């Protein structure tokens, strides 16, 4: 049954009364006081028990990351806010920074207390530079507040230059240090050898806000939301052939069907979950696919496609993006992306037989396990999910 737009908006509003952590106004002074009343161990325990996983896309348990960084012995540690929101179809961090910057700062301050960090850096996506003056103004006030409250921690903002790969935490750190934004070899991980080779926590904008809220309210409310593997809620950026578009905070664990009913135009044939590096879910799998770490994880991007769309063009577009945005250092990603793109082009033009797709699928499997970083490893996600589910659209 297709709902009309009004009903959808009403339903979403109802949903918002149940889930509203990110965009809810808070007194950040109180947040900091609460944080100061807790020991670092208590903070880490609170976040760990909440089950919060990183909201940037990779989903690493936040509490564990903080614990690793806290265990490191070092005179200097860093907290970095990853605001290099570059995944196509994701635009929620921008809104969070526009509306709730102080909560992001508070999340960083809380983290600094948990891991004993002295410096915070916001790595702001180059394209978001227009936000900078306002952010800086708010930040100046916040830094002052931190000083008053006795935090030995302050935050600065640094701008990226527009490379997608710099959202990968080690590439981000390289970029911050003034080098080419190229992912590092891991291990070691940033928690032990990060910015300037010092222990560093890199958290997504949204993750930091959830941390702030978890500390402010305790993790009970958070734990009530979501599923066992995907606790809490998440902010979604909805775009594409959607009846309702925009930014919505929703509970994790819903099925794609439920999601499409809320947002779709009634003719949704596929949803790309997690942006260009995510998975494409076809209509026949809507019921059985859960949005969350047990199903299809997402950094927030939800792109809806209706039957007027050619999935070949969708895939072509993603692959072009990767050919451009691969840092270029490792072979599977740099050359593999090009081969996948040229490969589907050649099949389409009849220069290669449809069976060539099998070679490309094998190549995609190699890329998954052989690329140096998450970018290269996830190029096969859209490729395989689109090619496997929309075979005819690719070869004919």
């Amino acid at each position, binding site marked *: 049954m297709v709902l009309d737009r009004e009903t959808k908006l009403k339903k979403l509003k109802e949903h918002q009364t149940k889930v509203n952590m990110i965009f809810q106004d808070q007194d950040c002074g109180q947040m900091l006081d609460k944080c100061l009343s807790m020991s670092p161990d208590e903070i880490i325990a609170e976040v760990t028990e909440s089950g919060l996983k990183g909201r940037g896309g990779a989903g690493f348990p936040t509490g564990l990351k903080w614990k690793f960084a806290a265990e490191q012995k070092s005179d200097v540690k860093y907290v970095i806010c990853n605001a290099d929101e570059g995944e196509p179809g994701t635009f929620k961090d921008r809104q969070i920074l526009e509306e709730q910057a102080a909560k992001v700062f508070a999340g960083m301050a809380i983290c600094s207390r948990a891991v004993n960090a002295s410096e915070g850096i916001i790595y702001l996506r180059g394209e978001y530079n227009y936000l900078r003056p306002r952010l800086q103004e708010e930040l100046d006030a916040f830094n002052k507040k931190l000083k008053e409250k006795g935090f030995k921690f302050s935050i600065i903002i640094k701008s990226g230059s527009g*490379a997608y*790969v710099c959202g990968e935490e080690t590439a981000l750190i390289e970029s911050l240090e003034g080098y*080419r934004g190229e992912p590092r*070899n891991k*291990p070691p991980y940033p928690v032990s050898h990060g910015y300037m080779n010092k222990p560093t926590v890199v958290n997504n904008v949204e993750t930091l806000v959830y941390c702030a809220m978890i500390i402010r309210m305790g993790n009970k409310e958070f734990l009530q939301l979501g599923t066992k593997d995907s606790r809490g809620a998440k902010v979604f950026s909805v775009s594409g052939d959607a009846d309702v578009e925009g930014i919505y905070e929703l509970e994790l664990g819903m099925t794609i069907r439920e999601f499409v009913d809320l947002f779709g135009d009634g003719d949704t044939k596929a949803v790309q979950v997690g942006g260009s590096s995510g998975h494409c879910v076809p209509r026949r799998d809507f019921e059985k696919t859960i949005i969350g770490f047990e199903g299809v994880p997402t950094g927030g991007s939800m792109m809806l496609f209706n039957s007027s769309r050619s999935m070949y063009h969708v895939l072509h577009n993603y692959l072009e993006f*990767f*050919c*451009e*945005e*691969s*840092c*270029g*250092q*490792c*072979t*599977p990603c*740099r*050359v*593999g*992306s*090009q*081969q996948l793109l*040229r*490969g589907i082009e*050649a099949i389409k033009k009849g220069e*290669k037989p449809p069976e060539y797709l099998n*070679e490309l699928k*094998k*190549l995609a499997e*190699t890329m*998954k*396990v*052989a*690329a*140096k970083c998450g970018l290269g*490893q996830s190029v096969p996600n859209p490729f395989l999910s689109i090619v496997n589910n929309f075979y005819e659209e690719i070869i004919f």
Partner: protein
Amino acid sequence: MVKLTINKIPVSVEPGTSILEAARKVGITVPSLCYHKDLCIAGNCRVCLVEVKGERTLTASCAVPVYEGMEVFTNTLKVRNARKNVIELLLSEHRCDCLKCEKNGKCELQDLAQEYRVEEKSFIDLSIGKRIDRSSPAIEKDDSKCIRCQRCVRTCAELQDVSALTVARKGEHMFISTFMHKPLADVVCTNCGQCVNRCPTGALVERNYMEEVWEAIDDPKKHVVVQTAPAVRIALGEDLGYDPGERVTGKMVTALKRMGFDKVFDTDFTADLTIMEEGTELLTRLKQALVDKEKVALPMFTSCSPGWIKYIEHEFSNNLDNLSTCKSPQQMFGPLAKTYYAEKAGIDPKDIVCVSVMPCTAKKYEARRPEMKASGFRDVDIVLTTRELAKMIKQGGNDFRHMEEGEFDSLLGKSTGAAVIFGATGGVMEAALRTAYEIVTGHEVPFPNLNIMPVRGMEGVREASIKIEGCVDAWKFLEGVELKVAVAHGLANARKVMKQVAEGTSPYHFVEVMACPGGCLGGGGQPIPTDMETRKKRAMAIYEEDEHMEFRKSHENPEVKLIYDDFLEKPLGHKSHELLHTHYTKRMTK
């Protein structure tokens, strides 16, 4: 020690060892491309992938250290398939020009393709058309063969601290470029060729001048003479089936004669001459400083290494006075061949073609410097690397291994052990000290068997001091002086020493700098691979050769004595100035 298993074989290694190194310790070779023993880890080619139990993805074995209880598998089907894919991808962006390629038979990508039985183009051909930069007389850069392993970039940054080569753009457009994408000839490149020595494919090669040499030899009107640098004889064998460190001096001479050179001379001869000139120059500067109280540039730096010369001209152009004015042995040889030898042999110098065989690519550039025309002609016409000579010997069809030992021709062919060690870092210093000390004191340097051990070795910067005692009358003012010297090799180390000079804090009187790690024996024109292990073996061969020489001090070289008696008169004399000394040029820093 960390215990792990590789292919179920128990291994125990130091903490911090990479999987790749641990595997090699138990005789398991993991293929690699971007890995090079001299360089930091990149982990970007993804050829060295292995399977580690418990890991979701494959692991780049060069980049990941072992841990206790690790279970590694280097040859599973999953690993082989992934590696094969990676090699196929590299080949798809590589312009396969194997038959004509300089690196044919010596290309690491080709070897891997063969090992993994990969078709030349199993994927779509992504290679760009020929994009070759031939602006430099020394190095040829062909982007269409580059596999982006960045060995060259790391070499230029880490070993040389020059960073002429750098990564530009990203994704499919990523390539290895220069400052503002300028041609190599127009950027701060020292032509040292260390990048060439480390390039796994034919993307960076020396400019090849083999055909020009064959043509000259074939021309009946031309009298073709050849000189061979000290470091060539101890490495040439590596490209002809010998192990590193085997000396092939005599066979090399015979091979050159059989190839048709009219005279086979030795750069060692002019190395000895360099010592006479440079040693005298040093003593003169010391006298000016200590006795005449003149303002004179000290420390004095050696000037044999053309890579080093171009480097200082770019990077420390305010300190050019610190350089010895002596030409390098190659460039001393050229004008002497076309004046002294031409005169003695009764040959018109315009008909002489002067070829040199060098361990060095920068020598190709040096020979073309506009000022190198002291004889009235281009002093050195064609410069070959050790690698090019090995190829020509093969082309000549001679069985090198069973060749009899030949002798260098006389007049410019006699040499000493002091000249031989020019090929190793510290060698020029040692040779200079052997001679200068004896000139000043009348007796030999106070080191057993003339071996000045403190200046030998592979430490990046080495220093030594020698107290001068028992001076002869002419040099009495040096009595009791503590002569402080230093030796640096690799331009990154040269920068350290130069910084002190620029800041006015250098404690030394005399400094030897060689652009290449290990000195000439590790030169950019030497057989590939060159790494610490081969450098050490070549150094041992050089010092062995020194010990086997009849004369071991430059001033004892009978042909050197002869040329001063017959032609040059005395070190730093009028003729020397004309033929054997040079001046330097300030160059831009970008």
